[in-house]
């Protein structure tokens, strides 16, 4: 019996899916006074869930240039007229990332193709870069989120391929080789980095730059 089937059976019994659990776990990372950088998909779902429950005053920052404190309907893309409507500020991608780069965004969410033990994420290629076995679309805002936000949470479904010892391509550096101060050394903001990885199976944290299992759903 594969893990995947067990998962489905468990979901049936529990009355909610593993994806639901990922969204809820992610939402729990958000506090009421947080400024949250989100992309589309599960991160957007999580931030809207938080805003509708325990964190009604959180501010949501979206890469194309939207800053909102007012609730809104779940969009299908990072930008749409629903996302614009009744926002506090409409501006550009540069401006919202300035908020991040200057330390004013405390929590960020991102998906990832792969994540390794030091929290480095791969959104680019499996195998050789010039002749890849698989290609994802690249960083997008992922590298920006993990570079700038005080605390970044990575959300992805768990499998052996998605959790290699070291990723083939570092799109978004976490703690690099895990040695202390490595992020600061290369010129990233001090004290930032991935703080959690949320999967369909559980939640991981980081201790001394290395991923550790915190809880199983």
């Amino acid at each position, binding site marked *: 019996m594969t893990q995947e089937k067990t998962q489905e059976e468990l979901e049936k019994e529990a009355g909610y899916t593993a994806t639901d659990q990922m969204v809820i776990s992610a939402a729990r990372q958000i506090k009421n006074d947080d400024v949250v950088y989100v992309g589309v998909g599960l991160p957007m779902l999580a931030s809207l869930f938080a805003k509708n429950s325990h964190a009604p005053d959180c501010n949501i920052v979206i*890469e*194309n*240039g*939207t800053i909102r404190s007012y609730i809104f309907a779940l969009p*299908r*893309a*990072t*930008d*749409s*007229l629903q*996302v*614009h409507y009744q926002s506090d500020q*409409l*501006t*550009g*991608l*540069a401006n919202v*990332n300035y908020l991040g*780069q200057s330390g004013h965004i405390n929590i960020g969410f991102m998906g990832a193709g792969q994540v390794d033990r030091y929290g480095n994420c791969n959104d*680019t290629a499996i195998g050789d*870069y010039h002749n890849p076995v*698989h*290609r*994802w*679309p*690249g*960083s*997008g*805002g*992922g*590298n*920006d989120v993990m*570079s*700038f936000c005080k605390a970044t949470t990575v959300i992805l479904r768990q499998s052996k391929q998605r959790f290699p010892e070291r990723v083939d*391509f*570092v*799109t*978004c*550096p976490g703690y*690099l080789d895990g040695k202390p101060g*490595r*992020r600061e*050394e*290369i*010129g*990233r*903001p001090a004290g930032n980095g991935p703080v959690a990885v949320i999967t369909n199976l559980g939640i991981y944290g980081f201790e001394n730059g290395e991923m550790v299992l915190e809880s199983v759903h």
Partner: protein
Amino acid sequence: MSKVMTMTEAISKFVKSGDLLFISGAQHGEPSAAIHEIVRQKIDHLTVVACLVNTQQLLIGEGLVDKVLTGYMPQDESRSTGLAKSRRIGKRPEIKEYSHFGIAMALLAGQMGIPFMPLKCMIGSDMLKYNDNITSMERPFDGGQIGAVKAITPDIGILHVQRCDAEGTAQKWGTVGVDQEGINASRKIIITTEKIVDADVIRRDPNRTMIPGFRVSAVVEQPWGAHPMHMASCYNGDMFGYMMDLRGEEKYEAYLKDLVYGTANWDEYLKKRAEVKGEEYFKNLEIKNPVKSEPIISGF
């Protein structure tokens, strides 16, 4: 000499083979009508810089692009018909990868007229191994390292806006992605606009201006010019419908044959698309419950 002209004229006069082309509209209001015209005129050997622009896959698929500068682009050819076609016809472009902010800062440096922009992202990633437009450098004043991205100065930029005057003084609102930086960084500029308005409309609200007319080479009035993307104040988008319309070789080729090569201009495209999609299609994209902003006052 008036800058107002047809799309055919504007593209043929100002977009040249070999140009570095900036396409505006990061998911909001890209100049789709202009891109169709570039495809029709087969202007090739382009380098494209853009952020989340959907119609760029037509340029790629038709073999017109030598190089893409991008933060995000579907590269799984089983899911990107345009890219798959470019390989098939031996025209797969070289792809230089940045983060979104990296692209924004490269264009900002272009706008500002400086050769690079320092930044704190991308460094430490493997992007630097394959993109020599990103580097690590020593900081002045306090020492230590920081990242830097090389300026991008497009030969030609195309911006679609809600309104501009006949001189090209252009105003866009809603999210502006990398438009401000990209269009101002461009040497030649084409403005496509939902509506050409009297200069007085612009001058009663000059804070909305994204680029002054003296920077602009051509002005093209084209309602629904950003479809299938949305345009604030004007219409909703159908991005996912459009993606499905282009998914797979057969549909992609049919779209190109019917809606690009099979039309002389964007108005014909809109008419044909309405025929295929049903008469309610464009009506459904209209804004349902518009609210108005408070006017502001000028004068002394």
